[in-house]
């Protein structure tokens, strides 16, 4: 962890702890007000509880030009990214993707190229639909490791995080409390339920919360579609392609639309939002990640729409390539934040 970032967040947290006006906004302040002194792990935990809604910034009487120069959303965002990078495994790649949109674009090119090469050199001897272009076995051989690797990497990172913030033995009720916070994205609604201050200074709006939920639920639906397909393939012996009213298609289509719209909306909000109230250095990486995730969803929808045309092999390569790159950089991109947030909320549920 970078000492100067933690130190600056601690300086600000100490001022907040003497004020307490923001207590009702989100999970950060009750957690902050429980402490008298802030160890590095406490600051890391506060940083990962913060959803960057910025309500506290606009309500703060101590922001610049005041000499206290408070900008808690920014200070916590910087510590947050630093914590993700510091706990990531393996280390050398960890510090690239959060910051650089270019690195994400490059990973996309590499992912698509690899998929083209797979199509060209592995291909398929028989099979229907997409499997006529790349065999099911080849897809599994590529994507199973690409799916498991990020899970292993994230598990290692979250263990490091859990130790740093002093987490205790997990209980089911901690988990369910945290999931309920995430399901409603309570920390983006603010204590009064009017939303956050994101795209238009101190005006409260639910835009970011709704965009975020479109992305999150869209992603989960797509994930459910793939899982359902896997079960149908292996357990029920019903290989793809599936009919429009089948579970994988219904979930995949609604999820794909939600994800595409959500990512577009989120990118538009992010472009309008004041950069200096977040981690300005991660802006490019964040936007690059949103674009990548949106591209995954959009290319999936295109593949569905044009799957029976001559464009299919090219679209399949674009879609699978973007999925591949998305999976591989998950532990090092903004995608990791979801796992850390959930972990932080579980820890908060333990301490409440």
């Amino acid at each position: 962890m970078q000492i100067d970032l933690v130190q600056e967040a601690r300086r600000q947290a100490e001022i907040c702890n003497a004020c307490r006006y923001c207590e009702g906004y989100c999970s950060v302040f009750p957690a902050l007000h429980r402490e008298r002194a802030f160890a590095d792990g406490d600051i890391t935990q506060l940083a990962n509880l913060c959803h960057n809604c910025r309500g506290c910034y606009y309500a703060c009487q101590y922001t610049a030009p005041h000499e206290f120069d408070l900008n808690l959303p920014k200070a916590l965002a910087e510590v947050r990214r630093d914590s993700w990078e510091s706990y990531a495994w393996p280390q050398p790649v960890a510090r690239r993707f959060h910051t650089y949109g270019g690195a994400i674009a490059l990973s996309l090119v590499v992912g698509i190229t690899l998929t083209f090469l797979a199509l060209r050199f592995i291909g398929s001897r028989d099979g229907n639909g997409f499997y006529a272009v790349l065999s099911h076995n080849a897809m599994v051989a590529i994507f199973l490791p690409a799916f498991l690797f990020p899970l292993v990497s994230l598990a290692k990172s979250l263990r490091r995080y859990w130790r740093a913030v002093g987490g205790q033995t997990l209980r089911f009720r901690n988990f369910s409390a945290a999931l309920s916070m995430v399901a409603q994205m309570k920390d983006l609604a603010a204590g009064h339920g009017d939303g956050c201050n994101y795209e238009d200074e101190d005006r409260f709006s639910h835009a970011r919360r709704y965009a975020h939920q479109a992305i999150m639920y869209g992603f989960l639906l797509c994930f459910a579609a793939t899982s359902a397909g896997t079960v149908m393939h292996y357990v029920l012996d019903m290989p793809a392609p599936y009919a429009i009213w089948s579970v994988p298609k219904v979930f995949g289509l609604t999820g794909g639309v939600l994800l595409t719209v959500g990512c577009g909306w989120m990118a538009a909000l992010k472009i309008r939002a004041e950069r200096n109230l977040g981690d300005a250095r991660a802006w490019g990486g964040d936007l690059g990640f949103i674009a990548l995730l949106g591209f995954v969803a959009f290319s999936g929808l295109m593949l569905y729409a044009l799957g029976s045309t001559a464009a299919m092999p090219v679209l399949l390569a674009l879609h699978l390539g973007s999925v591949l790159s998305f999976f591989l950089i998950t532990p090092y991109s903004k995608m990791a934040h979801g796992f850390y947030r959930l972990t932080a909320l579980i820890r908060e549920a333990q301490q409440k």
Partner: protein
Amino acid sequence: MHRDYDITVIGGGNAALCAAMTAAEAGAKVLILEAAPKPYRGGNSRHTRNFRCMHTGPLGPLVDDYSEEEYLADLLKVTGGKTNQHLARLAIRTSEECLPWMRDHGVRFQPSLSGTLSLGRTNAFFMGGGKGLVNAYYRSAERLGVDVLYEAHVAHLELDGGRVTHIDYTYEGRTCRIAPKAVIVASGGFQADMDWLARAWGPAAQNFLIRGSPYNRGVVLADLLEQGVHSVGEADQCHAVAIDGRSPKFDGGIVTRLDCVPFSVVVNKNAERFYDEGEDVWPKRYAIWGRLVAAQPDQIGYVIIDAKSLELFMPSVFPPLKADTLDDLANQMGLPADKLRKTIDGFNAACGDTSTFHPTELDGVATNGLKPPKTNWARPITDPPFYGYSLRTGVTFTYLGLKVDENAQCSSDQGPIQNLWAAGETMAGSILGQGYLAGFGMTIGTVFGRIAGREAAAYAN
């Protein structure tokens, strides 16, 4: 922005905004002239956190009830009877209808903050504090078509024939003149004008810290008083509390409070005690300590506690000085070490049985034969590390202001001034003759802001 305004509101805090919104809703064209730049808009309202509200049953965030008589009794207690009961009752009675009005105009409330549970029945806390309220009001005012000029410094109101004929102000380096039909003054006290404070208080005032906005310099107040507008309150009266001596000169706000005095020994720069640190609970004594510190040499005090007491009070904005010995602490604080040791030794020797020590109640754990005594929470200062804070006088607001009637209208010897109203801190002296009741400033501002807006709009239309 070249148009004729019906009403000009001078000031940009809670009272000004309540007046502007009310007048705009009554159909008036309103211009706000706010002296502060946008990030500092809102005057002392930025630093407030709640609204004291009468209620006959649970209301919004408020529990139980808080009757007019109980509210008035609380006010009489802190002011020692120095109040205009007619206006006080008006403020109290109207406060109940204000809370839903505030919500309708964008203010959001939150449960009583941690460390303030005793206020959950009487005071409605703003979500995010006073700046959150101010932001919401500016949004609502904007929607109602109110225009706002920031960094607009009003220099003069011309009074002629019992009415204000025009206002002179500077804006973006130019001198401007405007002649609205009605004027509402809501520009606070004069506490940020150190020279005025020094004239009223003596040179000691130069060492005072100003807890609120640096823009409340009383320019409009002085201008009107010079022209014979009736005043209320005395210039040498101000609400001052003892705060952390390291606080900024201006605008330190709530975080600069120090709640540790009851658990401490307080000395002046000669390392001598000067008052009973344990006379009563801190919320009832911090204002007295503002004056006590002001009366000490160099207007400074030094608080000394030991390890036993460190966690008994709200965390301070800056960490305390810390030392393993009293000598070292004395050196860090610039106090004569031998003298301090003698004072602390004398204090420790006068401490008796501390087994009934209770940090949140008057526990009667007192010194014996010490002058001045410490009558509660008197535990010897013996456990290292020792901690120290400096104390300074922090001025919250001044009491001298414009005298108003129940319609918030100003007057002179010739009678009411036809088109001049005042609201907020600048007329609060009419109700708060001395002392302070938490959250009552916002009540006065809201109630009289709305009255001034209503009356001014009725006149202008």
